[in-house]
């Protein structure tokens, strides 16, 4: 093995440890997770009641059926933690206190280091909330007589596999948007402003506010091409069968295409950002 491969292996190990430590720490916040689950169940219920009221009196069949909307809404709620609508408060703290200087001193790639942390920040809390949320939406709802609101499993194994592939892209895409917010702090120091701007874009263009197919037809060509779609709309519609299996591969490729473009551009952004940083404090 050449020296270079050893160094590479070594650094991958480091980023893996960074990820694992952060992941385990975040798994400790169980009380917060319970609150989160209850909020998400409540949210899902309101959204479904509103949707049900609209669907009950629809005269023209909408481009997405009510059972598909049910899956869309529940998946959106149980996977809410994956949406890049906030960022790691620990990173915020680094800029505010000036501790970002230490981060820059480490003999590691800053982008990779933060990416590992953000990956943990996005996945660990989501995992905690996913299970109880799914139990409610899949098992409990039919028991209390609300079958029409139940989150049903995907049609077949192929759909499930395609959905999971799409979710891999979703996680990566989410991390890239999160790291973009972190990168913006090199200029703004205070992160909340950019985060809230990002929040707005993400929530509407991912399909969280209402499923994207329900937006007016003249908006669809634009909605079709923007990257935020890969965060909710694509995987959830693959799950419910609204995107047929033969189209799903193209949609997943589309997701990974955006992942590649955004990974490259945020990486470049970071190399510029290093030179811009203002270190607070003395």
């Amino acid at each position: 093995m050449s020296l270079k491969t050893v160094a590479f292996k070594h650094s991958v190990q480091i980023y893996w440890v960074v990820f694992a430590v952060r992941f385990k720490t975040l798994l400790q916040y169980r009380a917060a997770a319970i609150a989160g689950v209850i909020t998400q169940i409540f949210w899902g219920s309101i959204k479904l009641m509103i949707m049900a009221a609209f669907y009950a009196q629809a005269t023209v069949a909408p481009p997405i059926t009510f059972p598909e909307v049910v899956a869309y809404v529940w998946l959106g709620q149980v996977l809410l933690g994956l949406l890049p609508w906030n960022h790691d408060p620990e990173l915020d703290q680094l800029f505010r206190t000036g501790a970002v200087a230490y981060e820059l001193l480490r003999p590691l790639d800053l982008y990779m280091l933060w990416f590992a942390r953000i990956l943990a920040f996005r996945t660990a809390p989501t995992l905690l909330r996913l299970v109880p949320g799914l139990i409610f939406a899949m098992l409990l709802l039919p028991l209390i007589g609300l079958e029409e609101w139940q989150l049903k499993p995907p049609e077949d194994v192929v759909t499930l596999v395609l959905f999971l592939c799409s979710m891999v892209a979703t996680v990566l895409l989410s991390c890239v948007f999160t790291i973009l917010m972190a990168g913006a702090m090199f200029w703004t120091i205070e992160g909340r402003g950019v985060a809230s701007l990002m929040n707005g874009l993400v929530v509407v263009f991912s399909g969280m506010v209402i499923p994207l197919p329900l937006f007016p037809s003249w908006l669809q060509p634009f909605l079709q091409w923007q990257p935020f779609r890969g965060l909710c709309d694509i995987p959830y519609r693959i799950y419910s069968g609204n995107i047929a299996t033969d189209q799903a591969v193209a949609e997943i490729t589309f997701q990974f295409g955006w992942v590649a473009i955004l990974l490259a551009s945020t990486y470049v952004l970071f190399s510029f950002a290093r030179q811009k940083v203002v270190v607070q404090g003395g």
Partner: protein
Amino acid sequence: MINGIQLYFRLLSTSIRSQMQYRGSFVFLTIGHFLTTGIEALGILALFDRFGNLNEWELPQVVVFYGTVNISFALTEAFARGFDIFGGSLVKTGEFDRVLLRPRSTAVLIAGWELQMHRLGRFLQGLVVLVLGLIHLDSTFSILSFFTLLTAIIGTILFFYGVLILQATMSFWTIESLEIANVLTYGGVETAQYPMAIYKEDFRRFFTYVIPIACVAYFPLLPVIGIPDPLGSSRTFQHLAPLVGGLFFLASLTAWQLGVRYYKSTGT
């Protein structure tokens, strides 16, 4: 009393000045807040565009509910920040000990903790939507309906303020900030953006009798819109309903005072 009010405004003006130190961030935050909270309006618009109407409700009527609850909640959020962050930032850290040392009302000091300027974003979008809705209503908008609208807004502000005080009060016992209260604040806003009549009965009952958001953000708006209640409430009741918001606020304040008496410091 007058001294208390003076103090309150002094605290608020300090807060404004400190936020103006990060002017760029304030601008971003406000625009961001305008957009993020205004997005729900886009959702409503898109749904009406797709489905035509919502049972007996038309778009301008629904957005009156939307606008009212949003401007009210924006004002509450702006002025009740101290109570909102109370559990995590003051009880958990023991910081509340310092507040208790001051010879002033704790409620005033916490109320004046921070005036969140960027909530202006939600307020403005709610106002725009509300005005647009009122213009396009079929019924005429009289002075009387203006006052009815005002009582609804005040009632809703007091209601949400009460919820945030209760949330803070709970943290005297739990030490932590209770995120679960978000169901009542943000969830309440989400719920009240649409007329209560469209929801399932149990759900509606909960938001009328247990957490009385329907009394402040649904019933009093029916005379403003000028339609009879599909749920069958009388006009007199609709006009009186916002009082429940005031009662809720007073009850929360009483609970707060009990909580302060109970408070045990976490400090070292």
